[in-house]
């Protein structure tokens, strides 16, 4: 057995010497798990849709209040740009978080 293998064995033995969780800590933890209210989560795409609808409403409002003005003409591409940006950002964030979790978490609910 080489020195490195001996050190590996010693390290494993030394670090894995078990320490039992205190019963009080364990009891509180189990109680918290049982009583913790279910986390309320919204779908990842919902904020994007709401943001998009708000933008559309704003653009429609500008066109209604200032018809045929430079502001109404400008609001159309600006609104479209905002919606595209929010969709792109949401999709990127979604892909990023999924990549992080895919090692251990499957069957998304």
């Amino acid at each position, binding site marked *: 057995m080489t020195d490195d293998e001996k050190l590996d064995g010693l390290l494993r033995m030394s*670090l894995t010497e078990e320490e039992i969780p205190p019963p009080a800590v364990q009891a509180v*933890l*189990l109680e918290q798990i049982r009583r913790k209210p279910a986390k309320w989560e919204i779908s990842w795409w919902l904020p994007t849709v709401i943001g998009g609808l708000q933008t559309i409403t704003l653009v429609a409002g500008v066109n209604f209040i200032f018809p045929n003005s430079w502001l109404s003409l400008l609001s159309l591409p600006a609104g479209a740009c905002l919606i595209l940006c929010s969709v792109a950002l949401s999709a990127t964030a979604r892909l990023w978080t999924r990549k992080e979790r895919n090692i*251990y*978490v*499957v069957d*998304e609910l």
Partner: protein
Amino acid sequence: MATERQVVEQLVHDYGTRLYTFCRRLAFTPGDADDLYQQTYLRILDMKGTLDLSHNPAGFLMSVATRLWSDERRKFARRQRIVPLHYNNVQVNEVPDEKSTERMVEQQQTQIELREAVQQLSDALRVPVLLYYMGDMSVQDISSALRIPQGTVKSRLHQARQKLKLRLEESGYDG
């Protein structure tokens, strides 16, 4: 959600001791370790999706604990300044009389020294060592958990081994 609670409770029963041991090695004080241990399971409860328990669940739990600890490192470090680390050396005295041969005591002492040496490593070296030896995690898994390249993990493990070896040699360990 009820099923998830049962799964998490099962994880507490099956891997609680291993995770708690890991938390004790990772955090600076027993109080921090208790906090980290509880927070880890509560964080898992908040995770969406179904856990894939076929892939080293202990490693998964330790990755989550490491992430939590890393996020709240400043808080733990502040506590460490207030309450300095006193590693528990009582275990030498806890060896039953009939088994307390010189060899066993020496081995226990070496283990304690080694644990202290690991504890004194910088975080960059200590965390990969703990995940590798306690979580039985591969270099690839550690790389994913810590978000660092695999080469960096290998290099840190190598550096840590060299430092620990040196420390043991200084204290008279001859292998």
